[in-house]
């Protein structure tokens, strides 16, 4: 069964956390660099940070590390990019949100509710023949949940793509790809 699972099929993924100036066109500049070099962005999440002048783009990329270095350096050259960190998946917390509408007759609904409760998800809406649930959590957990839901018949599914921050334990730190900024 095909799923959106990233973690299972690509154990060595890269998470780039890119701090950019919150301006029109920034996302196009960033994503354009990946497209031009033929890289597939696996997921991408953008939102303003605590400083409204800045946005954080979290990009999960589907590449080996050597060519990634070139993209990261090219990203640095974008005038609107303020900082780039590569997050080590072992040393960061990753979260993602899934929303799904599952087709389920009223008599089987309890099974989906139970599944959602086991995963500590939420019931967002209930209809006669369908139910909409949500779950936030680690991407692995979301993968599992999605796979189990598929058994019932997913009508619509939306995942946000992951966001990540470094872990707060002692060793955790942003592995800054580079301190200085490129020209």
């Amino acid at each position, binding site marked *: 069964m095909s799923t959106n699972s990233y973690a299972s099929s690509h154990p060595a993924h890269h998470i780039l956390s890119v701090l950019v100036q919150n301006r029109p066109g920034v996302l196009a500049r960033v994503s354009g660099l990946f497209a031009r070099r033929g890289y597939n962005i696996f997921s991408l999440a953008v939102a303003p940070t605590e400083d409204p002048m800045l946005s954080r783009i979290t990009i999960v990329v589907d590449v080996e590390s050597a060519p990634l270095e*070139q993209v990261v*350096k090219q990203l640095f*050259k974008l*005038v609107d*990019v303020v900082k780039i960190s590569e997050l080590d998946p072992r040393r960061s917390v990753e979260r993602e949100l899934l929303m799904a509408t599952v087709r389920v007759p009223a008599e089987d609904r309890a099974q989906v509710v139970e599944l959602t409760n086991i995963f500590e998800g939420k019931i967002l809406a209930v209809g006669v023949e369908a139910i909409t649930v949500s779950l936030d959590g680690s991407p692995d957990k979301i993968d599992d949940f999605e796979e189990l839901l598929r058994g019932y018949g997913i009508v619509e599914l939306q995942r946000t793509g992951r966001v990540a921050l470094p872990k707060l334990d002692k060793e955790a730190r942003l592995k800054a790809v*580079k301190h*200085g900024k*490129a*020209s």
Partner: protein
Amino acid sequence: MTQKITGAQALIRALELENVDTIFGLPGGCILPAYDPLLDSPIRHILVRHEQGAGHMAEGYAHVTGRPGVAMVTSGPAATNMVTPLCDAFMDSIPMICITGQVPTTAIGTDAFQECDTVGITRSVTKHNELIMSADDIPLMVRQAFHIATTGRPGPVLLDLPKDVLQNSMTWHWPSDKEVLDSLPGYKPVSKGHPRMIKEAARMILDAKQPILYAGGGILKARAADALRELAELIDTPVVTTLMARGAFPDDHPLCLGMPGMHGNATAITAMQKSDLLITLGARFDDRITGKVATFAPDAKIIHVDIDPAEQGKVRRPDVPIVGDCRLVIEEIIKAIKDLLNGGEKQQDISAWKSRVSGWREQFPLYYPTNEPGEALKPQYCLEQLRDGAPEGTILCSGVGQHQMWSSQYWKFNEPYTWVNSGGLGTMGFSVPAAIGAKVGRPDRTVWAVDGDGCFQMTAQELVTASVERIPIKVAILNNSYLGMVRQWQEMFYEERYSEVYLSPELPDFVKWAESMGCIGIRVESPEEVQPAIEKANSIDDRSVVVEFRVDAGEKVFPMVPAGFSNDDVLLHPDQNNRREFLR
């Protein structure tokens, strides 16, 4: 100062404050408001005949002056006509400011007349671009544009100005340096090299037995020619100058090996290949230099100095990467070497290496078979004559093709900023407008454009601009009736199956065409006519001259490292091939 002016007035005032003396451009609907205050400005506007010409003129101007060239055009088709020069400037790191008109902000996104997504289209061919949505932002955006275009690795910056933004009134404010820097938190080019890396480079240089200085266009961008010369002489090490770096080190200097690469000379190619240390200065291991990367300079350690960190390790992983401005870094390396020498360290004896290099130079000079009486004129001969007849300090521009390679090979560039060509993009049609821009930038110099018959037909109409604006340049067309470079590849790699490369021996009539554009036209068909024609051209100062040389179509550029070949397998001129064994 809370004086109200229009966005257009602010734009022109901002350009004046950035010391712009010339704008190359052509007006139209959306940029109209900016052309009105231009009438009252001391800035000279040069009205081109095609926007691509404006772009290449701005490039030529920037090449020879080191200051950003400025082009201004309208929206839509004018903006798309600028894509080629922008990409050309981007590939060759030329500082350039391009101002485009845009439909009014209220019409953006409605497919209005002459609307196009200029910032979207040009995003990947500019160092930076901006759509300016408010007249109040104009001064800051102009200052940012000049700062970005000229610092770090230089490049083109485009500002897209909607018509209403130009018409609206604004409160003039000229931002301070600090305001500009604070507004660009993500732009901090590094110019000083890392001290530890510089020490390491110095030590590696003294330890090398077979060093080569590999000088690229970055030397010229950083105005580091003097520093390079000092370094070369200090360590007595031969220098190769890439196509972008011709003139960065004097060709008549005993340490100069000239151009390496696809059509470089055998000595420069081989010296890099056999070297044990490539001291790489503002060069980027372009595929035209390395040949097959896997076999490029296999025994060489690499010192790589470049202001752009993305060049480090892009093609070849350096042993000592140094991010910084070439001039500052070379000066630091010189100091570090002197410190080591003063501390009693010695440089390796490189005399055996140098005599090996000299051996190659003796065995493999640039070569072409000379004209026999009655034979067709050799293009290389024309270039030698042009070179020998050129007044001191002449600036040479070229198009793209065989004539470009012969220009680079046969000219003697003894001064920086005397060579203007399209290296990275290889843009046919570059030379005539670039030469016009160069002449505007350096009116005191003679400017020759060496062009192909194919290239000339792409942008020749700018000679009308040259005549009307009284910018006298000289053009030498090496007319081989062919898209010669493509013909050469078809001859060598497609079994002489010539497909769509034959132009015409008679059409156009270049002399009449030149005359119709207000130039003097001269046709040269035999070797005896070459010198008098060049003398005549050099004696004319009040208008442009076009000399058409009818040259041998069969002549090929040698040496050659065909695409995908190893530099070890460089193809020599067939007449030199019997000496191949000396290339060890």
